[in-house]
């Protein structure tokens, strides 16, 4: 086992799958010699050659159309969208074309494509780079959407995504790239694509979060533990599908729940979680479901991000409110 950052775990997963399967291909803007603007593909072109790891012209629809065409020729493409804020340029190829191909061709043609892209905020990037557009893809039938909150899951989920025979959108949190290190096993291991994880057990309330907000939620759980409150924290890991069984089991135990997302309130993953719990476990609840999210503005300018993004303070406030509800 080695200590790895989130981004090192991603690079390692890519290396493992480039080695395991010679049909895997990595391509995107600046992913070759430069190793990607965040260095996620650092050294991979040198190690595996320009046939396997290559730069593309600067066009997101072209990159994803290329991925679809390559998948139709038996490859296992791993395209990168340099920032997920650029995904709208590629929405037809991803949501209109790739996502519906298996269904459209009577189940006979699968497209094993993993679209990697950094998302989320808090790193003061220029306008339209940072964004929380995960719900835009998580509401498309035929796409899986996963996002890890830590280096261990980053590697295991990415390997699972690459091995999966359907299109998977793999979202990497910008803020987490270099802010945490974890023990990460060498070689291949997988984390299931459709299972949430209880990352901290508790009995008084459940916080459901994903990506960077999992770590914010854990801070709140630790703080409240000192006051004798037992907080369970669940990392969704998969935004589509949502692992409702794991969520419902927790709610049946704690009877109180707060759902956290970094995205705007109207931008839907938390809303889906809330409605799933309402449908399946409303009678187990002792309080309304709490929701923590960013406000419904356009994604903020870099200097305003810290005032805008929900973090531990906002989560704590909401958790206390739901715990106190009688």
């Amino acid at each position, binding site marked *: 086992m080695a200590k790895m950052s989130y981004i090192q775990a991603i690079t390692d997963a890519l290396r493992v799958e480039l080695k395991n399967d010679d049909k895997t*291909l990595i391509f995107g803007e600046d992913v070759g010699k430069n190793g990607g603007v965040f260095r996620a593909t650092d050294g991979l072109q040198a190690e595996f050659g320009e*046939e396997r790891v290559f730069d*593309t*012209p600067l*066009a997101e*629809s*072209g990159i*994803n*159309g*290329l*991925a*679809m*065409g*390559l*998948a*139709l*020729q*038996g*490859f296992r493409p791993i395209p990168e969208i340099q920032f997920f804020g650029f995904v709208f340029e590629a929405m*037809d*190829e991803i949501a*209109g*074309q790739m996502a519906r191909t*298996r*269904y*459209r*061709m*009577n*189940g*006979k043609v*699968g497209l094993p494509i993993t679209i990697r892209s950094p998302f989320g905020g808090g790193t003061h990037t220029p306008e339209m780079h940072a964004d929380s557009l995960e719900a835009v893809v998580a509401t498309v*039938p*035929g796409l*899986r959407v996963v996002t890890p909150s830590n280096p261990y899951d980053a590697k295991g989920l990415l390997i699972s995504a690459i091995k*999966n*025979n*359907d299109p998977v959108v793999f979202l990497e949190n910008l803020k987490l790239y270099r802010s945490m290190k974890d023990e990460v096993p060498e070689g291949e291991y997988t984390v299931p694509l*459709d299972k949430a994880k209880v990352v901290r057990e508790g009995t008084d309330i459940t916080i459901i979060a994903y990506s960077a907000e999992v770590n914010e939620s854990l801070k709140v759980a630790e703080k409240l533990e000192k006051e004798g409150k037992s907080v369970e924290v669940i990392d969704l890991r998969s935004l589509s*599908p*949502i*692992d*409702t*069984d794991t969520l419902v089991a927790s709610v049946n135990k704690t009877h109180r729940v707060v759902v956290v997302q970094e995205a705007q309130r109207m931008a839907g993953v938390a809303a889906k979680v809330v409605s799933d719990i309402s449908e399946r476990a409303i009678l187990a609840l002792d309080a309304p479901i709490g929701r923590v999210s960013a406000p419904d503005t356009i994604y903020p300018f870099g200097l305003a991000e810290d005032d805008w993004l929900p973090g531990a303070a906002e989560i704590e406030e909401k958790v206390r409110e739901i715990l106190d509800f009688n």
Partner: protein
Amino acid sequence: MSSRVKFVDFAAKKESLASKDKPLQVINSKGEIINKEIFDQYSDEELVDLMKLMVWERTLHQRSNALTRQGRLGFYAPTEGQEASEMGAQLAFKKNDYLLPAYRDVPQLIKHGLPIWKAFLWSRGHVLGNDFEEEGVVGLPPQIIIGAQYVQAAGVALGIKKNGLTDTVAYTFTGDGGTSQGDFYEGINFAGAYQVPAVFFVQNNGYAISTPRHVQTAAETLAQKAVAAGIPAVQVDGMDILAVYEVAKAARDYAAGGNGPALIESLTFRFGPHTNAGDDPKRYRSTDEEKPWFDSDPLIRLRKVLMDKKVWSEEIENTYIEEVKAEIKDAVKKADEAPKQKVSEFLENVFEEPTPDIVEQIAAFKAKEAK
């Protein structure tokens, strides 16, 4: 500051943009052979086969039109007028070539191996129309999103190159309107950048639904758009099947030879409406404009040449039309026998491994369907 040295003449630059090449033509609209050198390469038998291809497509069109009116077909984009453009192109490609058609390219898809009954099911809105596995059709179902197939064609062709497949290309069609899409430019640009074996075929039929070609672009030709991507391109008389076949074959040979992609602009005309869902060309085309194109009918000119050679007659044509009609009649019958589609089966085909939500929905729909 009033008099400056004129160091660049943009007006002159604009004049020099388009290629001065004339579109290739072998037989003109009067049925005169104007390129004897090319014409003489064809045996009588080959010429008759080309005629049959066009008669086949015209008959398919006429029957499809009638079937649509009777409510026995669904979506249909009429092909009348474009027989030389479509069949001349299709004939130049091989079964192992990967076809990415648009919705007016169903005849090519059929000639590429899709049974007519499946094409009819696609028209009606039945998934079996897109099930290519049984016949091993190398290609995709017709694209609806204008231009999307162009970026995919670049990917398929890159895959062909990476797989080391020899004598194999990807080929794709769009219309004049399609060349305005971002995906058109991205597709040809990617194909050029990676020097892949792809042939891009533009059927310029003058109108994107009602919008005339001159509104789409200031470019003098659509072929010249390829120049910016570093791709060689030619225009061809799309009403002359010999000319279309010649350029399509040359483009295929070029791409299959490892030289990179090529683009063809075929100058053609859609005689009828955009689709059979209420489009009326009288709203946007004058009869004065239509007449020279109707006179240019690709069947008329080859028919004249073949009749002069005494290898074709009204009787031969009518006998062949009856054969095609019988083939179409059987296809309709077979399409009618297709099983009713089930939502539970759609759910099973969203992912290879259904998600828990979908597993639940499959069970619910199966219970409903069992009633």
